[in-house]
């Protein structure tokens, strides 16, 4: 199976690899795994408490090229968005952008999960109303 050019680009030049201070109150951390292939993905966001805009995003993924590309793309997309806007990102958009084949769709699901987990962690830390979280859930 051949990877698309975009996947290869993200794989060779992953954006925003690294980590943020997990203990910081403005940082949300999402750690998720794909039972399909044993991949693990950590995605972190730093949110401006005034504007609720995600100013920084970092990831570290142990997994296949598609999982790395999906999380790399996810960090690019969440940056500059508000928390609520970032929750709108759907795995299907990642699939489309990266032209992922059906067997790699779960990689994009993992990236979407990672965004949600990171935002969920940030909300928990900052006591953001449960109602907003419930409304944003699937």
């Amino acid at each position, binding site marked *: 199976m051949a990877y698309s050019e975009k996947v290869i680009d993200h794989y060779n030049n992953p954006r925003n690899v690294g980590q943020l201070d997990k203990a910081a109150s403005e940082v949300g951390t999402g750690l998720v795994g794909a039972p*399909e292939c*044993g991949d693990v993905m950590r995605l972190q966001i730093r949110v401006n408490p005034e504007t609720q805009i995600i100013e920084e995003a970092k990831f570290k993924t142990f997994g296949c090229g598609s999982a790395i590309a999906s999380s790399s793309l996810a960090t690019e997309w969440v940056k500059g968005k508000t928390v609520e806007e970032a929750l709108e990102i759907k795995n299907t958009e990642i699939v489309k952008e990266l032209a992922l084949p059906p067997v790699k769709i779960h990689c994009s699901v993992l990236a979407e999960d990672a965004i949600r987990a990171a935002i969920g962690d940030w909300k928990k830390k900052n006591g953001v109303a449960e109602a907003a979280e419930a409304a944003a859930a699937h």
Partner: protein
Amino acid sequence: MAPFKIVQASDTAVPVKCWSCAVAQNESTLFCSTCSKVQPPLRMDYFQVFQLPRILRLDVDVLEKEFYRLSRKLHPDRYARATESEREWSLADTALVNDAYRTLQDPIRRTEYLLKLEGESIGEEHSGKVSNSRASRVPSDLLEEVFELNMQLDELREGDASLRSDVEAAGQKFEAMLDELDSKLEAEWARWDEGDATARSTAQKQMVALLDRRRYLDNLLRDVKKVLGA
């Protein structure tokens, strides 16, 4: 060995007549039960190839002997003077027997294969189709440890030899977890082989969950061995 329970595969229930002697065969078979002629490859699952019920605890020695016996019976030398159709079928049957043996002789592949036959999606085939059940399948208690060990492996690869003993210790820990998991899996095999429909359904779900967890451990241990062996 557990008492056999025959599971009838619905798509092979239609009786097929032998092309040569026209005697109807009760089940899918490589050779006619009456005239022993090789049969065209039909829709046969790997258990049917070896005329086995869908059971998980197989005697691999018996399986191996049967594999060699079938392979000899299908050997091209035996078909040198046969019709062209028979030559083709014997080759196709040989490929089927090889695939079936490779899958069934390995207990994990055998389990995955059986679960697929029973309608479960295994491995990358989940494809995020079942988003509701997905979260429950992720072994979250493992994630932190898995991630941490992966980080250490990365640093070790980059030459930080001081982490070697840490990684070795973690490797042993995960190895022990794998052993524990495998004994749980063996208990589910027994439950599947001996149980009624309810027990089987429970065992099926348990096995899917255990295999998910196993995949994590397996991938991780493979990486650990690669890095430590390098």
